[in-house]
């Protein structure tokens, strides 16, 4: 049986000064809990945001004209297109040919117009879609897709805000405007809620067939935008390039907005915030380091005579050093282990409160913060124990023996 007598001495010293050691370890516990729960919160937030965004970020929006290019946030909310400002059938065919293999390509008409529901007038976004696209893109909650020129389908928010049910009537067009074309339509369906989206913000809009739309606003084959819903978000760059190479060879005919870039920037913002919050949490470990240092210095001061005895009967400097380093390591280990257990509990609560879901809690990216913060805690403990241990080892044995 082999036992390390130096380690035994460290353990006994900690047990003898249990309360003091416990208080020092609590500092480490707090530090570990703070760092790991903040880290876990950040990781969970990133994953949750990524998940939410990637559902809508797999969209390329192709708009007419050179201008800006990528990175637009909303894919054209409320932008009324001027007569020259559209994507024509030929361009659409080009886009479909080049980008078709990356996903579903569909054209979209968009207008903003005055609508009248019962006696209330308001403005609303109106989309026109081809019949075949409606079937693939839209998800109906109630009723059916519009088939005829007198029928529309509305988004759930729009329906709720205006107390619309299936069969409700809407008058599209400004009745006060002499030149405007007025059309009365009937709601035949209500869409399922979709959430924010790059290509088609259908929740708060009226959607009609291509025929109805062009009947109202003219411009058949003059699309406001063309959307590409990618099968794989990783194709975003390739598809963008392909479209641009095809259409912008001579002059900038179209601008492609890649919404996956926006996701990247949001994800990176979240991780910057996480790092910042973790740095603040790290301050608590600095406080812990001070308290460990203090406890170790006290331990050395109290045990000067004992160190003198140990040295005089043949204990090497290195062994005395080791004894105190062990003490720091034990404090660090105990603190880190308790901290790890507590950070699983507290982290779970923090994630639940801040992110709203713990779906991602038990993932590698999230739980990795537990061992990481434990390591940081132990390292800080050892570092703060180095000087006191060095002092203990280098005490003059004669002086140390003389101490009371």
């Amino acid at each position, binding site marked *: 049986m082999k*036992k390390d*007598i130096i380690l035994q*001495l460290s353990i006994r010293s900690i047990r003898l000064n249990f309360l003091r050691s416990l208080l020092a370890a609590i500092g480490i516990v707090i530090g570990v809990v703070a760092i790991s729960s903040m880290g876990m919160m950040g990781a969970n937030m990133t994953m949750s945001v990524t998940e939410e965004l990637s559902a809508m970020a797999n969209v390329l929006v192709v708009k007419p004209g050179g201008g800006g290019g990528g990175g637009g946030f909303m894919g054209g909310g409320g932008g009324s297109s001027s007569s020259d400002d559209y994507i024509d059938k030929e361009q659409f065919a080009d886009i479909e040919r080049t980008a078709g293999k990356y996903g579903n390509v569909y054209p979209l008409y968009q207008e903003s117009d005055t609508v009248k529901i019962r006696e209330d007038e308001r403005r609303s976004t109106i989309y026109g879609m081809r019949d075949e696209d409606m079937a693939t893109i839209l998800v109906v909650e109630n009723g059916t897709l519009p088939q005829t020129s007198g029928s529309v389908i509305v988004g759930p928010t729009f329906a709720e805000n205006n107390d619309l049910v299936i069969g409700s009537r809407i008058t599209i067009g400004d009745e006060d405007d002499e030149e405007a074309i007025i059309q009365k339509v009937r709601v035949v369906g209500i869409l399922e809620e979709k959430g924010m989206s790059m290509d088609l913000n259908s929740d708060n809009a009226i959607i009609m067939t291509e025929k109805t739309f062009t009947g109202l606003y003219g411009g058949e084959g003059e699309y406001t935008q063309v959307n590409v819903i990618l099968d794989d978000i990783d194709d975003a760059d390739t598809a963008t390039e392909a479209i641009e190479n095809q259409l912008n060879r001579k002059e900038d005919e179209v601008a492609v907005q890649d919404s996956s870039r926006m996701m990247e920037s949001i994800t990176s913002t979240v991780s910057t915030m996480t790092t910042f919050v973790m740095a603040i949490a790290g301050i608590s470990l600095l406080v812990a380091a001070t308290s460990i240092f203090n406890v170790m210095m006290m331990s050395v001061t109290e045990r000067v005579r004992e160190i003198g005895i140990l040295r005089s009967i*043949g204990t*090497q*400097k290195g062994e005395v050093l080791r004894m105190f380093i062990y003490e720091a390591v034990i404090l660090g280990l105990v603190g880190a282990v308790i901290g790890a257990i507590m950070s699983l509990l507290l982290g779970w609560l923090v994630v639940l409160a801040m992110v709203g879901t713990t779906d991602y809690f038990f993932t590698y990216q999230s739980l990795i913060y537990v061992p990481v913060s434990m390591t940081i805690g132990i390292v800080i403990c050892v570092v703060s124990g180095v000087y006191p241990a060095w002092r203990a080892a280098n005490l003059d044995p004669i002086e140390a*023996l003389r101490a009371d």
Partner: protein
Amino acid sequence: MTAVPVIELVDVSKIYPLASGDVVALDHLSIRIERGEFVAIMGPSGSGKSTLLNQIGGLDVPTSGILRITGKNIRKMSDEKLTDLRLNAIGYIFQKFNLIPLLSAYENVEYPYILKHRCNDTTGRVSKLLSEVGINKRLAEHKPAELSGGQQQRVAIARALINDPDILLCDEPTGNLDTKTGAQIMEMLATLHKQGRTIIIVTHDPLIGAQAERIIRIKDGKVDEA
């Protein structure tokens, strides 16, 4: 004499440099102690006997001169070598017993054994030594604070002997004990001497000194021949 003396001081000086002027604690001291001797080093306080003890015990090194312990000059030794010397060649018995408070009596005796052999004592040497100094198994479980002064000193003697040292160095071993217990401890040292151990005892008590074979008197850092 042809045998290597266990301790040999040749012209040893120890000077403590101070701002107010150097303090000469040992002044060109020459002493020779043979193996198996029982020597008392005596002198008034401030005579330099504590300094001498620290040199012989390998806790400190002389400023000049040659100090050989078991034939090895310690003046040029590294701290590590000196520590090894203390572990292997010297057994300390202190006035204040100086047991390690965190360890039981048994573990106190075993401690230098573990340092030397890097393993626990499986030979029964610790138990044997403890029973020789009159500490039974039950007492050996206790921490030093739970033992009487006499018992602590017995444990300290057992600890000093554990690594079979060349020199048993006793610094006022009876100083903190009553007369009766002190006499028992001295008897024990006398027995050890009869067994062939080299014993050096530092004391200012003439009655204690008288029990040794030879007395070296120190005065002002020199051997007082008178």
